[in-house]
């Protein structure tokens, strides 16, 4: 169980639904560990700033998280969390281990576009 304020994905079916029904999706797949928590917090902070992106987490030890663990883009990853970015259902970027706010924003801006502020 991930104790975050993000929306959780709990099954492979739900994962498929989320990435097929939303154009831009960021999913952080991890545990409640030291390298993962900072990424969840960054996502919680960015969620309201990026309304065109859906933010989710998924527990790494959930057997259905194989959809991320075994993704070709995550081959060679040996550090939690695995963070994947989907555009129209396809992975466009994946990172391993802790990331900074600037690194996450840079990927979001590059892959999904800079948020439009009123």
């Amino acid at each position, binding site marked *: 169980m991930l104790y975050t304020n993000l929306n959780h994905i709990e099954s492979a079916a739900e994962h498929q639904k989320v990435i097929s029904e939303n154009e831009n999706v960021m999913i952080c797949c991890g545990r409640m560990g*030291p390298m993962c928590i900072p990424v969840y*917090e960054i996502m919680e902070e960015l969620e309201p700033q990026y309304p065109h992106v859906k933010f989710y987490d998924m527990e790494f030890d959930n057997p259905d998280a194989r959809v991320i663990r075994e993704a070709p883009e995550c081959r060679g990853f*040996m550090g939690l969390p695995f963070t994947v970015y989907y555009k129209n259902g396809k992975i466009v970027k994946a990172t391993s*281990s802790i990331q900074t706010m*600037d690194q996450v924003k840079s990927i979001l801006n590059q892959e999904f576009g800079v948020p439009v502020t009123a």
Partner: protein
Amino acid sequence: MMKSDIHYDVIVLGAGPAGLTAGIYLSRARIRTLIINEGTVGGQMVLTHEIANYPGVETTSGYQLSGIMKKQARSFGCDIVGNASLRELMLEGPVKMVRLSDGREYSASAIILAPGGRPRQLGVPGEETFRGKGISYCATCDGDFFTGKEIIVVGGGNSALEEAVSLTKYASRVTIVHQFDHFQAFEYAIEEARNNPSIRFILSSTIAAFHGNEKLQSVDIKNLLTGELHNMPIDGVFVFIGYVPNTEFLRGKLNLNEYGEILVNANMETGINGVFAAGDAVAKRFRQITTAVGDGTVAALAAAQYVYTFRQQKQAEAVKIN
């Protein structure tokens, strides 16, 4: 001179145990306080998997302890801005100013600097490329990726030796690479590592480069006595070589020592009026959550006294003018 959007009595830069403690004490004393933090609230405390020696608290995680401290600070009215990016800082003069990259500006009568530190990196070729792909800084997070594999632990302090022992639960063999011919760790940690049959040692040596394709495959190890370089196939490397203070933004603004640590007196005062410092970024021997909490308390009480005196002076000046 910058003109701020919001004025506080005290701004605390950093939300690790030192900064959060300062926030708790100041807000409880009804001193208007803002904590600004560049990373995750909790600082390095969040990176601690298990805390068993924090007095009065049974074994807990760094995440839980930082969550409680944050809640305490907020309950007393302390404002907290997290994941901020600092752009400009003015420490001199009676009004201190902070400007963030997003344009927000804050001023205060006093500032407490509690920026903490971060794990030291080796700074050799390939380190950034293979971070999370064989190079790790957290044994509890990533240890199980290396089950049955051969790994290296770099370092010679308590963290390095204790984590090396803990990693033998997963790895088939752990090699400790250390730059000196002796360890800085406590005797119990050295003995435990030496008595573990899965651990071997390469001393007076360092890693000079990381190599691989999709993930780490080998390292170049340099013997620091002979200069000899040899390549060693390896699946993973865990780096525990201490911490560096997050004080780059303070260079040229106040007194730092040769390691970049902030110099303070017993009241946690820096050389600038109204500027205090606390926590791991301060020059001191021991760095624990408890020592950071102690620093934060002293800095908060000293800053509170400074703010009261500052207020009295302002009131006296106002009376004189009238």
